[in-house]
C-alpha cells in the first residue's frame, strides 16, 4: 500500500493523493533527485497481482516514456518496488477537458478547435512513434493552468487485462470507435474517431451517442448515424461540422487518414470557418435532413428571439422527420440520461462509487488547482458588478480584471461627483462573457488625449499583441475587421507573433476597416547580401559564406540534372543578392549527379527468416522504410510472401520492419506432488523484427 510520506524508488516522496481511476491512483510526489514535483500513477493492487497485465503495462508505459511533446503529459520513469508498479509523470496542474466542458456547458467554436489542434498535435507525435492511444476522451486531455492542452495515458489505459471488471461506470465507450466496439483491429484512425467525438462534445456540451447501458452505447457507435453538431448548436460553422463528421465516419477508410490531415483542416477552420474545404470521402446526404432534437427546441422556447428562425429552418427540411417517440417522453429520457451522466461523473469523484468502476481506461486525473477562471483569455461567463458611484479608475480596473473591455464616456452631472461612475450600459448582475465591452458613463469632462471620448463610433479593436499571427487574424476577423500584415524585428516578441497593431487594442475603428499587424521576424541585426556560391565545391562555398559573415546551414545532397554541377553546390537557400541578417544560416545543396531512383519489386518473405518464432498465419504488420526514414509501404497481412512493386525510391537501401506477436514455447514441468507432467503454454508477446534490403536501380532516369 502506498502511504503519504513514503519514499519510492529512493527518490519520489509521496505527498498527496490527487486522483483515482479505474486501474490506478495518482499521487503528487516530489522527486528528490531532480528536486521537482511529479505525478506518480500507481497501479491498483488487483491489477499488479496479474503478471500478464503487469508485463503489458510495463511495455506500454516504457513506450510512452519514449515520447516527449509539449501536448503530451510526459512520462519520466516506470518502476516497481515491493510489488507496487508505478509510472512517474509530468505534474500538470489544471483540470481535465471533461471538467472544463462541464464547467462551461459548451465551448466556443474557436476554443474547441484550438484545443482540438493542440490535442491532435500531441496524438500525432505518438502516432509518429507508432503509439496508438486507443482511449482518447476528454478525461484524458488536461488543460493546464497556463492554458496548455496535454494528452495523457498513452498506451497505458488500454493495456488489456483479463481481470473480470464491471462496466458500471464505463464512460469511455462514449468515445470508442466502431472497430474498437466490435473488438476489431484499431489504429491511428480509431484515435481520430475518438477525437471527433471529443470535438463534438466540446462544441455541443454533450456526447453524440447516449444510452442506458454500455452495450446500448457501443451498439450505437457501430450502427447509429452520427448526428451533426449543428443539430444542437446551429451556429457551428460548416467547416467544423464537416470536420467532426469526417472524423466520426463509421468506416476508418472514410475518416481523415492521418493526424496531420486533420490538423490542417482544423487550422483552416480557425481562419476560414465558413469555407467549404473539408473533403468528404462521400457525400452524406442524410445528415442534412435530420430533425432538430427536442432539447434544442426547449432551448429555443427559452430564447423566443430565435424561435422564428428555427421554425422556419425546420419547415425547410426537405424530408419529413423519421418516426420517433412522443416529444415529452423523449425530453424526459434525455434529461434522465444527462442526470445519469452527471451522477456517473460524480460517482467517480467520490471514491465510494468507484466501487465496480474498475474499468478499462477510465483513469481520471483529478488534478490540483481546479480553480475557476484560470483560463482568462476564453469567454467564461461573468456577472456584472455594481459600479455606480465608484471611482472611474477603480471601476475600469475591476472590470478589466474580470476580463471585460471597458469604454469610458463622459457626461456632466449635477448629482454624481466628478470622476465617479454615473451608470454602466450593462445592468448589475447580468451574465456577460469575458471579452465583452462595458461602457461606463463618468461624471465630468473627458481627460485630454482620451481616445474613448474623442472617438465613440465604430467597434472596439481587440488587443492582439503577443498573440500568434493566426490567432490575431482569427480574433480580428471575427470582430469584423480586415487584417494586413507587415514584418518587423523584435528581441522580445517571438517570431510569428504580433509586435504591434494599428489601431491599438482598446481603441475603436469602423467595422470592416483594416488593422495593420506587425509580425515579429525575430531579433534584429546587421544585414548582408547573399553571395552566389553555386558551382563551387563545398569547402570553397562555405569559405565564401563565412567571409560575408554568414553561416553554413544544412548541407543536403541532391540529384541535379546538370552533370557539370556534380559534387558542386547546386542550390542555396537564399537567392543571390538577398539582404539577410549577419549570421543567417544558408542551406546548401550539393549535387550528387543526375537523379537515380530505385525500386522495390518482388516478394517480401515471412519474418520467420529472421525470427523462427514467427508462426505462419499470425497477423503481421509489414512496413518498408527507406534509409532516410521515409515510409513507402505498410500493410497488415497474415500470408507471406507479400508482393510489392514500388518505384521512384530515392534511397538505395531500406529496412523492412515486421510487427507481430509470438507465443513463447510451451514448457513442461513435473508436479513434484503427483509426478504428473504439466505443460505451460508460453506468453504471447508483441515482437518486431527487421530486415535490411537493397533496392534495385530503376532504369529510367527521372526528368
Amino acid at each position: 500500500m502506498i502511504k503519504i510520506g513514503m519514499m519510492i524508488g529512493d527518490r519520489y516522496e509521496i505527498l498527496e493523493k490527487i486522483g483515482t481511476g479505474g486501474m490506478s491512483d495518482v499521487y503528487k510526489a516530489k522527486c528528490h533527485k531532480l528536486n521537482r514535483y511529479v505525478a506518480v500513477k500507481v497501479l491498483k493492487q488487483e491489477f499488479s497481482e496479474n503478471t500478464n497485465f503487469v508485463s503489458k503495462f510495463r511495455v506500454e508505459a516504457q513506450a510512452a516514456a519514449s515520447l516527449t511533446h509539449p501536448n503530451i503529459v510526459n512520462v519520466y520513469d516506470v518502476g516497481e518496488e515491493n510489488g507496487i508498479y508505478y509510472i512517474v509523470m509530468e505534474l500538470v496542474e489544471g483540470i481535465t477537458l471533461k471538467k472544463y466542458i462541464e464547467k462551461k456547458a459548451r465551448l466556443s467554436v474557436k476554443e474547441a478547435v484550438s484545443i482540438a489542434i493542440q490535442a491532435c498535435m500531441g496524438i500525432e507525435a505518438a502516432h509518429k512513434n507508432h503509439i496508438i492511444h486507443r482511449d482518447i476522451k476528454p478525461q484524458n486531455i488536461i488543460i493546464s493552468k497556463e492554458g496548455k492542452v496535454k494528452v495523457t495515458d498513452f498506451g497505458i489505459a488500454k493495456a488489456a487485462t483479463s481481470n473480470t471488471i464491471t462496466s458500471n461506470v464505463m464512460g469511455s465507450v462514449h468515445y470508442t470507435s466502431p472497430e474498437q466496439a466490435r473488438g476489431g483491429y484499431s489504429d491511428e484512425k480509431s484515435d481520430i474517431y475518438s477525437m471527433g467525438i471529443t470535438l463534438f462534445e466540446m462544441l455541443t456540451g454533450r456526447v453524440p451517442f447516449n444510452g442506458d447501458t454500455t452495450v446500448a452505447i457501443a451498439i450505437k457507435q457501430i450502427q447509429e448515424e452520427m448526428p451533426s453538431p449543428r443539430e444542437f448548436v446551429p451556429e457551428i460553422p460548416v467547416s467544423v461540422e464537416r470536420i467532426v463528421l469526417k472524423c466520426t465516419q463509421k468506416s476508418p477508410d472514410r475518416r481523415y487518414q492521418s493526424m496531420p490531415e486533420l490538423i490542417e483542416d482544423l487550422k483552416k477552420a480557425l481562419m476560414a470557418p465558413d469555407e467549404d474545404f473539408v473533403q468528404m470521402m462521400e457525400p452524406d446526404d442524410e445528415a442534412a435532413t435530420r430533425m432538430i432534437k427536442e432539447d434544442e427546441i426547449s432551448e429555443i422556447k427559452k430564447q423566443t428571439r430565435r424561435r422564428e428562425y428555427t421554425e422556419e429552418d425546420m419547415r425547410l427540411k426537405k424530408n419529413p422527420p423519421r418516426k420517433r417517440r412522443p416529444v415529452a417522453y423523449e425530453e424526459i429520457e434525455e434529461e434522465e440520461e444527462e442526470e445519469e451522466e452527471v451522477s456517473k461523473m460524480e460517482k467517480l469523484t467520490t471514491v465510494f462509487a468507484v466501487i465496480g468502476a474498475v474499468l478499462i481506461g477510465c483513469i481520471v486525473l483529478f488534478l490540483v488547482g481546479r480553480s475557476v477562471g484560470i483560463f482568462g483569455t476564453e469567454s467564461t461567463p461573468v456577472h456584472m458588478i455594481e459600479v455606480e458611484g465608484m471611482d472611474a479608475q477603480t471601476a475600469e480596473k475591476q472590470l478589466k480584471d474580470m476580463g471585460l473591455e471597458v469604454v469610458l464616456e463622459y457626461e456632466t452631472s449635477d448629482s454624481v461627483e466628478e470622476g465617479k461612475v454615473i451608470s454602466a450600459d450593462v445592468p448589475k448582475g447580468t451574465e456577460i462573457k469575458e471579452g465583452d465591452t462595458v461602457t461606463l458613463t463618468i461624471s465630468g469632462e473627458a481627460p485630454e488625449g482620451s481616445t474613448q471620448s474623442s472617438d465613440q463610433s465604430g467597434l472596439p479593436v481587440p488587443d492582439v499583441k503577443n498573440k500568434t499571427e493566426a490567432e490575431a487574424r482569427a480574433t480580428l476577423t471575427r470582430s469584423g475587421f480586415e487584417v494586413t500584415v507587415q514584418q518587423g524585428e523584435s528581441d522580445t516578441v517571438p517570431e510569428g507573433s504580433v509586435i504591434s497593431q494599428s489601431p491599438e487594442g482598446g481603441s475603436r475603428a469602423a467595422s470592416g476597416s483594416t488593422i495593420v499587424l506587425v509580425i515579429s521576424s525575430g531579433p534584429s541585426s546587421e544585414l548582408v547580401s547573399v553571395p552566389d556560391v553555386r558551382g563551387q565545391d563545398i569547402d570553397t562555398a562555405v569559405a565564401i559564406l563565412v567571409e560575408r559573415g554568414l553561416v553554413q546551414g544544412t548541407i543536403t545532397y541532391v540529384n541535379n540534372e546538370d552533370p557539370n554541377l556534380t559534387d558542386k553546390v547546386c542550390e542555396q537557400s537564399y537567392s543571390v543578392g538577398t539582404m539577410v541578417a549577419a549570421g543567417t544560416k544558408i542551406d546548401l545543396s550539393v549535387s550528387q549527379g543526375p537523379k537515380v531512383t530505385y525500386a522495390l519489386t518482388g516478394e517480401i518473405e515471412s519474418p520467420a527468416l529472421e525470427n523462427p518464432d514467427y508462426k505462419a498465419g499470425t497477423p503481421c504488420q509489414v512496413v518498408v522504410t527507406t534509409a532516410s526514414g521515409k515510409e513507402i509501404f505498410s500493410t497488415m497481412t497474415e500470408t507471406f510472401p507479400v508482393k510489392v512493386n514500388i518505384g521512384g525510391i530515392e534511397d538505395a537501401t531500406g529496412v523492412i520492419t515486421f510487427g507481430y506477436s509470438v507465443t513463447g514455447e510451451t514448457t513442461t514441468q513435473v508436479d513434484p506432488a503427483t509426478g504428473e507432467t504439466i505443460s505451460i503454454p508460453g506468453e504471447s508477446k508483441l515482437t518486431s523484427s527487421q530486415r535490411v534490403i537493397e533496392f534495385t536501380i530503376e532504369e529510367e532516369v527521372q526528368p
Partner: protein
Amino acid sequence: MEAFSITDIGKRRRSNQDYAFYSLQPIGPLPNLFLVADGMGGHQAGDYASRCAVETILEEVRRAENTNSAEVLIEAIQSANKKILTYSAEDEKLRGMGTTIVAATCEGNRLAVANVGDSRLYVINREEIRQITQDHSFVEEMVRYGGISREQARRHPDRNIITRAVGVADNLKVDCFFVTLQENDKVLLCTDGLTNMLDDSEIQGIVAGEEGNIRSRAETLVETANNNGGRDNISVILMEPFSEEVKE
C-alpha cells in the same frame, strides 16, 4: 444425487477469488443448494466478495420461509448484494469489490437457476451441451443486441467486462431459469476460468464422455483448463441428479 466441487487458483493468479459451495442436504426450504461465485476487486476484496456472497446466501436460505425455490434464491442474492455494498462502503480496502453468482437447486427433475455475471450453468448429456444461464457480459450482450457476431465476441479484447455483478449497485437484477432434467443429464456450474480455457465441445467431451466418475470428470475439467493456460481461478461444481446410488 451425486456432486463434486473443485476450486483451483489456476496458473497465473496469486489469489483464488472464486468460491464454490454445495450441499446435497436440505438448507431451509431448499432440498439442496449449489453456488459458484467469482469475486473481483483487489487482493482481499475479491476473496471477500465471493465468500460473503456465498455465506450470506446460505444464511438467508436457512432463514427463508418461502416455498418457491426460485424466489428464495433471488431474495438471498439480493441480500448478498446489499451486504457487500454496505461492507464496501465502510471499508476502504474492500472498495470496488463485487462478485458473480450462479445459484441452483434441484427438486426432483426440476432445476431452478439464478445468476448474475458471467459464471455459468450448463446442462450436459451425450447428445448436447446447453448453456442455461446467459452471461451478463459486455460481449454477450453485444451479440444479443446484434452489435457483433459470435465470432467477433470470441476474440473481443473486452471479454472480461461484465455488465452486472453482486455488490456493485443498489438495484440488482437477477435472472432466473428453470430446466426439466432428463435421466442422463449432468449439471455443471463453473466460473469463467473454465469457460475461457475450454470451449463447449471440450467441456461436453469431458463431462459426458465414456470415462470416469463425477469426481474424476470435475478434476479433468480443472486440469484441462490449467493445461490450456490457467489464466484465471477455476471453479466447477459437477452434479449428477440421477446417479445410480440415489436412483436405486
